[in-house]
């Protein structure tokens, strides 16, 4: 028997039946009497001043209730306090194709859609910027007036002495890596339902209720308060089931604000659900990134210095951009022992949908570059990729040169596990020996890590990041009130498990009430993999708080010290006596307690127990009832704030990157490359993930596999295809998230490093494994073909183009002449260049110039 009754056991997600039966409600499944439908008009131009919006014709359409425009709610907001640059709807300018211009509220979706066509908008086109390196040169026509050169934020960090580090190096590799843009593509399109109550005292507009597919209900409440000029106490945000987030719902998405503004203007409940195309425009995904990376090693493989210059194509708004660019630098640390780091990061604005936080936020693209370059270095000094990684392990507990505190560190074990399971050396040697026709096989190894929540919250304060309340019911039921937002990762289940384990009751007793700002105490949201660590700790403390009261009563009942009271599996007993389930005489007790149905029979139970006199064991229910006898209401509360020593260095931007604990991952990818077609087939991935303690192994496995799999999508087939600010593939048909066919077997190994501060030793499990798989695939392709791809995704045309180059065969021309083995710039889709990078003015030679312009107006 393990030490735990519930922790560490595979448990079905407690809301899974609602999902498999269709009973569970997501936001778009909700409706209410009098509900209207909102539809948003989007900008057809990438950068333009709005001269005039005339909704008259639209308003006159039968069934249209109102048309909302930017001036209806001009207050600025943004997820970061330093990045309040968005408005509900465009006030003066539109900044990308798809930007939000107006919203029609109507009695049906089809009427609203028709009305969109009737809104007359006059634009004055402005020069637009689609390439970050070009955008940085801009002197005028800035995307945001307060951001010179269209640079949202730049950071220049130096840790240690990089110059000296490179001087010590025996080998240095330098190169440019380019990562394509990817998006979350969660299966549920964003949806929000908003309505106002009327106030009984004033008779006027009362409280606002918003149900929304969000990872951050409390931030939503905060931003609604800013935009609608309404106290947070007057706003209730409820998170129904959420159909996946991956970061795409971790900030305030335009429709969430628009729905509330529209409900106010239409004076009726309004629901807005994005089309899939709108989801792609709302985006907030992983930006296209240019990474100029330089790494030095000594002959023995030890790293001496790293210098990285990172340029992120952030899109038209700040979003999480400042955090993203900081993570990209900060997370160079805490994986390996790197004595000297130089980091120059540029978050750049362009006239494209805003990028934001996506699974593995900030670390993924830089990790692709770093782990690729590490293999290049290993090759240069004649070392095995496995050995060079082993050579550079951290020695925790430690604080890295850039101020990250590392306590638990399962990376060595992760590496050993996957190297052993994949039979690394032998299998690689075998693949070198035999070819199968045009297909070459190879293995690639890479590692990655991620934070278990940010040690500093977005809005800096010393307040707890999570608070949890627990209420014990009169029949021994346990209600946990948590602000944690379950978005499918299973946080409700995690909370239930922890509460049950601590309280020593069965899972069936636990009810979780989550993510409703009226009912549940604050939790800052489901992002940066913080929930298990932070909300888990708060849950633990809340449960311990309630348990204290139960134990006090039980001790009194059993006439023993409180320290001698044990609780497990719905039983309470005295230390030193046999656990009740090992006794032969529990039958009578079970009968008494087992059939007591709540408060009606409580009195008689109490009486009976009194008559029976003192015992050395009791049921959970009896103990809970006794606690109420002695203490009145039994409840518990707990909060969590990261400890001060985990909050990082004092340098500018040093607040991002520090975490109370880091997860670790190592992976080996077995891939085949068809040298005639460039098609890459991943046959198998061995993935080991250090999650501290696996609270629920089946859920941990699911998260690890899901991360690896999502990384494979980015590695091989997913990318935003751009043409002058036009997203060419805004849909599930053309954005190729993987199907079951090409999804390989992912063999997972859970490594449990037992973190000293995690709840039961747990750390994050949902993000850390994503980053490793992309370089692991790149390294496997190199192993198979001798061709180093430095541009992702590794689509067959890129792979073939690279192979042709190293084999000296006929060249395959790629768009913009980008060579995927030595990319110099970001690639765009081919086709007509009528924007010419200078704004939406049609090119003079374009024969459709005049008619098209007149149509737009």
């Amino acid at each position, binding site marked *: 028997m393990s030490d735990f009754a519930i922790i560490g056991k*595979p448990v*079905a*997600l407690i*809301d*899974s*039946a*609602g*999902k*498999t*039966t*269709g*009973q*569970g*409600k*997501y936001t*778009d*499944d909700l*409706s209410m009497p009098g509900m209207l439908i909102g539809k948003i008009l989007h900008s057809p131009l990438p950068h333009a001043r709005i001269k005039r919006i005339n909704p008259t014709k639209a308003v006159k359409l039968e069934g249209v209730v109102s048309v909302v425009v930017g001036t209806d709610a001009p207050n600025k907001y943004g997820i970061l306090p330093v990045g309040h640059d968005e408005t509900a709807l465009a006030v003066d300018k539109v900044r990308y194709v798809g930007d939000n211009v107006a919203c029609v509220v109507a009695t049906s979706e*089809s009427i609203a859609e028709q009305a969109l066509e009737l809104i007359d908008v006059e634009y004055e086109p402005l020069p637009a910027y689609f390439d970050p390196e070009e955008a940085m040169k801009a002197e005028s026509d800035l995307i945001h007036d307060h951001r010179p050169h269209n640079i949202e934020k730049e950071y220049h960090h130096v840790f240690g002495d990089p110059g000296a580090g490179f001087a010590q190096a025996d080998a240095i590799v330098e190169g440019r890596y380019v990562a394509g843009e990817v998006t*979350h*593509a*969660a*299966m*549920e*399109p964003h949806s929000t339902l908003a309505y106002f109550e009327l106030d009984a005292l004033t008779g006027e507009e009362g409280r606002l209720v918003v149900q929304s597919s969000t990872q951050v209900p409390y931030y939503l409440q905060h931003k609604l308060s800013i935009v609608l000029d309404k106290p947070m106490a007057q706003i209730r945000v409820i998170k129904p*089931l*959420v*159909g*996946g*987030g*991956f970061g795409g719902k971790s900030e305030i998405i335009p429709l969430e604000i628009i729905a509330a503004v529209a409900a106010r203007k239409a004076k009726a409940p309004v629901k807005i*659900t994005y*089309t*899939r*195309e709108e989801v792609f425009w709302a985006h907030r995904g992983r930006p296209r990134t240019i990474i100029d990376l330089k790494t030095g090693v000594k002959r023995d493989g030890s790293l001496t210095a790293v210098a990285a210059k990172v340029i992120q194509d952030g899109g038209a708004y700040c979003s999480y951009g400042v955090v993203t660019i900081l993570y990209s630098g900060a997370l160079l640390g805490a994986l390996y022992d790197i004595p000297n780091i130089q980091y120059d990061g540029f978050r750049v604005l362009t006239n494209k949908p805003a990028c934001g936080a996506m699974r593995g936020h900030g670390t993924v693209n830089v990790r692709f570059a770093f782990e690729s370059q590490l293999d290049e270095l290993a090759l240069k000094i004649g070392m095995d990729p496995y050995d060079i990684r082993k050579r550079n392990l951290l020695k925790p507990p430690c604080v890295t040169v850039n101020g990250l505190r590392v306590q638990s560190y399962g990376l060595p074990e992760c590496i050993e596990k996957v190297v052993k399971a994949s039979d690394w050396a032998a299998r690689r040697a075998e693949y070198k020996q035999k070819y199968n026709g045009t297909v070459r096989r190879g293995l690639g190894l890479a590692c990655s890590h991620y934070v278990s929540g940010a040690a500093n919250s977005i809005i800096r304060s010393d307040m707890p990041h999570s608070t949890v309340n627990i209420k014990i019911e009169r029949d021994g039921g346990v209600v946990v009130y948590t602000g944690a937002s379950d*978005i*499918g*990762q*299973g946080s409700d289940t995690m909370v239930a498990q922890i509460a049950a384990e601590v309280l020593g009751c069965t899972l069936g007793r636990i009810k979780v009430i989550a993510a409703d700002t009226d009912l549940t105490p604050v939790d800052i949201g489901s992002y940066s993999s913080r929930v298990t660590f932070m909300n888990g700790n708060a849950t633990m403390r809340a449960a311990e708080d309630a348990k204290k009261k139960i134990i006090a009563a039980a001790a009194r009942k059993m006439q023993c010290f409180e320290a001698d009271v044990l609780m497990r599996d719905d039983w309470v007993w005295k230390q030193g006596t046999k656990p009740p389930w090992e006794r032969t005489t529990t039958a009578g007790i079970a009968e008494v307690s087992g059939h007591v149905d709540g408060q009606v029979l409580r009195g008689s139970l109490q009486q009976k127990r009194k008559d029976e006199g003192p015992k050395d064991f009791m049921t959970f229910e009896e103990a809970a009832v006794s606690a109420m006898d002695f203490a009145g209401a039994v409840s518990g509360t707990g909060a969590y704030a990261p400890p001060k020593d985990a909050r990082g260095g004092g340098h500018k931007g040093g607040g991002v990157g520090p975490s109370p604990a880091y997860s670790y991952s190592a992976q080996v990818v077995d891939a085949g490359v068809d040298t005639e077609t460039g098609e890459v087939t991943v046959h198998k991935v061995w993935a080991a993930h250090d999650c501290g303690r696996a609270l629920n192994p*089946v*859920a941990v*496995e*699911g998260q690890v*596999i*899901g991360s*690896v*799999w*999502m990384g*494979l999508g980015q590695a091989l087939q997913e990318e935003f295809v751009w043409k002058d600010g036009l997203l060419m593939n805004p*849909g*599930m*048909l053309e954005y190729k*998230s*993987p*199907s*079951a*066919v090409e*999804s390989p*077997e*992912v063999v997972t190994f859970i490594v449990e490093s037992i973190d000293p501060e995690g709840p039961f030793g747990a750390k994050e499990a949902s993000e850390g494994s994503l980053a490793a798989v992309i370089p692991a695939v790149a390294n496997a392709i190199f192993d198979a073909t001798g061709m180093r791809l430095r541009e992702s995704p590794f689509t067959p045309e890129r792979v073939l183009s690279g192979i042709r180059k190293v084999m000296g065969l006929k060249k395959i021309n790629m768009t913009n002449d980008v060579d995927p083995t030595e990319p110099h710039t970001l690639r765009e889709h081919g086709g007509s260049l009528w924007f010419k990078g200078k704004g939406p003015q049609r090119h003079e030679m374009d024969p459709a110039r005049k008619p098209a312009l007149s149509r737009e107006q």
Partner: protein
Amino acid sequence: MKKELIELKVNGRRHELAIEPSKLLLDTLREDLGLTGSKRGCDDSSCGACAVLLDGTPMLACTMLAAAYQCDGGGNEVTTVEGVAEHGALAAIQKAYGDWGGSQCGYCTPGFMMTVKSLLDNNPEPTEEEIKRALSSNLCRCTGYTQMYEAVKAAIKAEQQGTNV
């Protein structure tokens, strides 16, 4: 456009409804019958979240006109995810998807329930390849599909042992 009276048979029950001829079966199920289990995940007939069974065959409700699937000729029986549970209990496949992590966020799950139900109804012992092919009709963004194979296999085993009969 004027509404027309149509008759649909869904999960064994007949419904008379007044709808526009251009109304999709998916919207009819969700809005007119309150059967919100079937989901809309895309707009280009790709994701499979809206899958329902038509006379036992999985199809996309987002790509079917409700008025074209009336139960006039005796056929055209629609089964949605709400009709999968058996006698008030989870069907084997529903239980297994929960137990084995086949469902995370759950948004694609109703679609998968329909594909897998049809697969196992027609082929109680599918090969791994057949399972993979059937699952390739639906997109999932959470699981990477791996745990779904475990779930399907577990459901087959449960059915064979009669644990859910």
